[in-house]
């Protein structure tokens, strides 16, 4: 009989496996286009071509997905703060 710990660990594997689909690009390819991708998202447009491949990669790669979310948050903060005074002396 399986322990709860076994089930917890195997459950994670099952979730990872179930969500796996063909992925035609690498993490580096994704990084190469991620700035273009987030600007498309911010503009409310749908990805096509290589950016659609980026989207599929992001659905399966947590690391790239996290970096994409971080970039979105960072550029939003940069835009929001463009009119604000700097938070510290620069230079």
């Amino acid at each position, binding site marked *: *009989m*399986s322990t*709860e*710990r*076994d*089930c*917890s*660990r*195997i*459950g*994670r*594997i*099952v*979730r*990872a*496996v*179930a969500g*796996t689909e*063909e*992925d035609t690009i*690498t*993490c*580096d390819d994704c*990084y190469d*286009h*991620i*700035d*273009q991708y*987030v*600007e498309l998202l911010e503009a409310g447009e749908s990805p096509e071509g290589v950016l659609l491949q980026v989207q599929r990669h992001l659905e*399966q*790669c*947590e*690391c790239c997905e*996290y*970096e994409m*979310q*971080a*970039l979105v*948050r*960072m*550029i939003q*903060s*940069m835009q929001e*703060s*463009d009119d*604000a005074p*700097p*938070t*510290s002396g*620069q*230079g």
Partner: protein
Amino acid sequence: MTERTNEQWLADLRAEGERRSSALEALRARLERGMFYFLRNDRSDLLDRSSDDLQHMAQDFVQDALLKVLENLDTFRGESQFTTWAAKITTRLAISELRRIRYRDYSLEGITVDGEIQPAVTPLAISPAESLSPERHVERDSVVALVQNALENVLTERQRTALVALAIEGMPVEEIAHRMGTNRNALYKLVHDARMKLKTHLQNEGIALDYVLGLFSE
């Protein structure tokens, strides 16, 4: 303030003297603010840091990122705003460093399906066994045994180590890659191949993954 176009950013950063330093400081200020907000609002592991600490971290990350930006100006293809491209370089650099710090004490040595790397991470909360009907409980035990067997016998040792570190322990791809002596692309492909292999194996064994998922999330 008039926003520079991509061409102006490139020209100013390639110029000399005041023109260059002015562009550099404008870019630095913007990246530092963005990075500071990211560290302050989106990093639960930094909640105990003071604003001054976070500001210094942001300054350090941006300083390193600016060097990369300047070194790679020729690679900017103009497919996004220049500042988005520079922010991309900054986030990648910062997150990589934060991951390196967070996982520096973790080791993959001796990792097994049943074991765990040290220090242990909090297991994912799943439904307690008593919430399943006896029939579903038996089904879940059967799936657990099947997946454990597949992990041991269908995957290579490297595939198993990488998949367990990623899916069970939640380690970032680049940290696992570093420990396994490979790069992020190759490690991602290793794990993706392992996931596809397991998926095909389970489907060939007559397992309906949509149904099985329910056994682990009720």
